[in-house]
């Protein structure tokens, strides 16, 4: 396996050297990617406001933070803290500490108004309630709901609009086996609820003939509290034991299971677990399994080759969700503190370029892998679409995945091209889930250029279609 990989990388290197300006593809291909991107922008404009226009409002208000780094820092810190504030008085106390007593770029008149309101117990309650409602609304916007059962209406709405979903359970870190057991039963319950949803299955049968009964994303770190890279073997063994009932239930109900990826540290544990458990007799011929490859990792192409080789041996191909990765800051601080070479690319455009190279690898492996392109970056997606055409990969063989609540007009635009779109839809307690999501959003808003994408005028938008532009964070 090592040999073909080596030559593959060399070939790519050679291309880089020959064409320093346009790196991953020929000028012709580059033009096609630009055209495809512009087409997506045009299409998305026609869907504007037809679908959740409140998102624009939200992203506009986030743009308020764009050139206010201190305020942005405090805002995200506050959102991180919010779930542990138990009373209205503590909310208003912390608003004062975080926004009035800590210097930020808040305009003077807002500051004055805010401190005036906070100085009086009655109006400070008003501020606290306001903040609580605001945060709850924002959280609701990104989180499907508390449980599948309570909020399945939203999923059904999506399906009616042609958008599938993969459901993920949000939550706190798993610190003990008791907490892990709770998550396992939550996953089992979710599978149960999904499989029993008659309404969805009717829509699905008519609109999405190839779709399994449901699609669930599983976070392995929430199934086993003692995951430890040093104890690789025992971590894999335990994880397999925890996953078995979940996979069995999914198989019996015909539900797709995706194993999510988290920190670099546990990546090999999750990959080895996936390879071993998917090969067990009960699961070896099941068509609906997927794993994730993170393009910000320097080893991602090597890993992808491993997945491709593995998938070739299966009766049905695995799905690979190709993402850029959401733990960039975490990986950077971890490696700095341990004195390690960072496992991630340091420059955003290198991640973007690698994403395109991984996309090409995935598409070239047709029909041995089903690609799922997880990105909100129109350039990355256009590049994948153009390459899919080049390698004659049928449009129904791959899909695009985007986060629930974000980029809706793009989802519609991509749908109109005949490409499936799936939303990564978290369920869980709204308030604790908020902190988690804000962290994801923080990472996304800084290195995806995604929010800018949505709000930029058409000229600026087109500039985002060049790889080099993503250099500036």
């Amino acid at each position, binding site marked *: 396996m090592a040999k073909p990989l080596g030559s593959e990388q060399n070939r790519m290197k050679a291309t880089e050297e020959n064409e320093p300006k346009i790196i991953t593809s020929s000028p012709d291909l580059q033009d096609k990617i630009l055209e495809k991107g512009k087409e997506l922008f045009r299409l998305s404009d026609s869907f504007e406001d037809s679908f959740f226009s409140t998102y624009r409002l939200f992203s506009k208000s986030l743009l308020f933070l764009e050139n206010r780094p201190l305020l942005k820092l405090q805002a995200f810190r506050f959102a991180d803290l919010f779930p542990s504030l138990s009373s209205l008085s503590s909310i208003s106390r912390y608003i004062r500490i975080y926004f009035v007593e800590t210097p930020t770029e808040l305009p003077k008149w807002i500051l004055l108004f805010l401190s005036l309101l906070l100085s009086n117990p009655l109006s400070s309650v008003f501020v606290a309630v306001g903040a609580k409602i605001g945060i709850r609304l924002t959280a609701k916007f990104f989180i499907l709901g508390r449980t599948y059962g309570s909020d399945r209406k939203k999923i059904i709405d999506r399906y009616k609009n042609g958008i599938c979903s993969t459901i993920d359970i949000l939550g*706190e870190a798993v610190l003990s*086996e008791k907490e892990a057991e709770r998550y396992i039963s939550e996953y089992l319950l979710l599978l149960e609820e999904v499989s029993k949803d008659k309404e969805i299955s009717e829509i699905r049968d008519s609109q999405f003939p190839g779709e399994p009964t449901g699609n669930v994303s599983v976070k392995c770190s929430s199934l086993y*509290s003692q995951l430890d890279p*040093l104890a690789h073997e025992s*971590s894999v063994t335990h994880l397999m034991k925890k996953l078995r009932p979940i996979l069995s239930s999914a198989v019996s109900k015909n539900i797709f299971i995706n194993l999510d990826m988290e920190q*670099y*540290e546990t990546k090999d544990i999750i990959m080895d677990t996936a390879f071993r458990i998917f090969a067990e007799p009960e699961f070896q011929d099941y068509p609906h399994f997927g794993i994730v490859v993170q393009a910000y990792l320097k080893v991602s192409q090597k890993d992808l080759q491993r997945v491709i080789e593995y998938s070739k041996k299966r009766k049905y191909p695995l799905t690979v969700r190709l993402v850029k990765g959401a733990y960039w800051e975490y990986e950077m601080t971890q490696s700095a503190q341990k004195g390690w070479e960072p496992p991630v690319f340091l420059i955003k455009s290198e991640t973007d370029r690698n994403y395109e190279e991984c996309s090409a690898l995935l598409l070239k492996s047709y029909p041995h892998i089903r690609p799922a392109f997880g990105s909100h970056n129109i350039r990355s997606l256009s590049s994948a679409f153009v390459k899919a055409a080049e390698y004659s990969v049928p449009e129904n063989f791959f899909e695009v995945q985007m986060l629930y609540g974000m980029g809706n007009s793009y989802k519609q635009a991509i749908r109109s091209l005949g490409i499936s779109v799936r939303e990564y839809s978290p369920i869980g307690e709204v308030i604790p889930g908020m902190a988690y999501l804000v962290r994801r959003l923080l990472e996304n808003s800084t290195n995806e250029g995604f929010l800018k994408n949505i709000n930029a005028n058409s000229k600026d938008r087109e500039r985002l279609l060049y790889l080099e532009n993503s250099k500036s964070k």
Partner: protein
Amino acid sequence: MNFHNNPDFQNETLRDFSKEEERSILNKGFVSIRKEFPIQVFPIISGKTKKSSLIVPALNPANTSEKIADIHYASITDAEEATKDSVQFFETWKNTKPDIRIGFLKKAANLLRSQKAELTALMSLEVGKGIKDIDAEIAEAIDFCDFYAKEAEYIFQPRKRDLLGEENIYTYIPRGVTLVVAPWNFPLAILCGMTVAPLVAGNPVIMKPAEQSSAIAFKLFNILIEAGIPSSALHFLPGKGEEIGAYLVKHPEIHTINFTGSRAVGLGMIREAASQNLKFVKKVVAEMGGKNALIVDEDADLDEAVIASIQSAFGFQGQKCSALSRIILLESKYDIFKNRFIDALQSLKPGLPEDPSVKVGPVIDSESKTRLDTIASQFSSKILSKLKIEEDQKHTGHFVEPIVFESDDPTSPLGQTEFFGPYVTLFKAKNFEDAIKIANNVDYALTGGIFSRNPKNIQYAKEKFEVGNLYINRGITGAVVDRQPFGGYKLSGVGAKAGGPDYIKQFLEPISITENTMRRGFIPET
């Protein structure tokens, strides 16, 4: 104070055990060290191996049927000979160019680096430490060598303050023979740091390792000799603390005692040193102990606070002077923290520390086990949770069940006495100020921490929390050389922080030399 940065110094990197290659090297380390068992550990004086009439076996604390080493104990005669040789060699060592001494430390760092796998295995088997703790410890030992080498380069550049007609030099000379009495809980790093600092300063050193970790100490001694330290500058005396340790502490030719260990022994040394009638003041540098607290504020991130508490309280079975033994919680967080913390404790796996999935190993010896078991039964009414350890496991080694106590009396021994084991007590506080008050109300001031997202409380803790090492929103163990120089005050210790800018100077006497260069009518050209 004179602070300077050491831009060239870089901390040793930890091993990345997510790499299969690292894991397999580690396994080979166990195989190869076991071939040396039982390691024969002798007293060595000026390069001469000494015979002993007392040979004590060193057993694996997790599996007492495995013999690690035979420790040949040194006698009083050996101690006397080591002292005599040290005194004789002092002038030579003192006059050796600092650069040469510094070179030995750099070489030692490289030798330690090349033997990581075997050292890891030996530490795991001789003292029962977990692999990741050992990895950090070896990195720390390497850091001590590299850091003190760099510091010495700086210290031995004389500080000149010359004027017209007057030359002023501020420089350092070594104090004299240094006795190093080291603990078993950081058998490599602490012994290494305590030894190489006085050595690089120009003092001959007599190493008296802890009885429980003499085999690791012997490996370190051999590495230092291999690195080039003259055999007359460094002597190795394994043996009984009460016997040769006590003898050397009293010895009139010992100028400095560098000690890490219990408060009782440390304070005894200080009294002994002060009472001696010598022509110099015998100096005792002592790092003694702690009753370390972590405060969990009402706005704390509990995911992080619980994990950090588990690691700080139960890492190496709580046998670290920096270990967490008191968790002080704001009332609103008490119950939820308690439940998650207990559940997290119950998820830890006890067993042999060489098994990488094991998080709870043995305590060091039967004496320690008996002492801890007595404490457990004495406070049985306060036990909130206990991690069960199977009977057959208990029979194979010195296993003690980790315990979470709960108490409303911070003045009781649960809140005041250092247990040196896997015991931690939860206390409640009314508010943050109250929590700091409870935390400070002990004899010790070693390590402490807070989990808070309130900038006011963080500031308050920075000003009021009486500890030598304060940690905010992270665990309270695992200090890194140069980044977090380690050490406490109050009854936690006396002397400069290990791995910090003042440490080497403790083994030196600063002198100031002023020369009037003016002769009647003329001054030399500069």
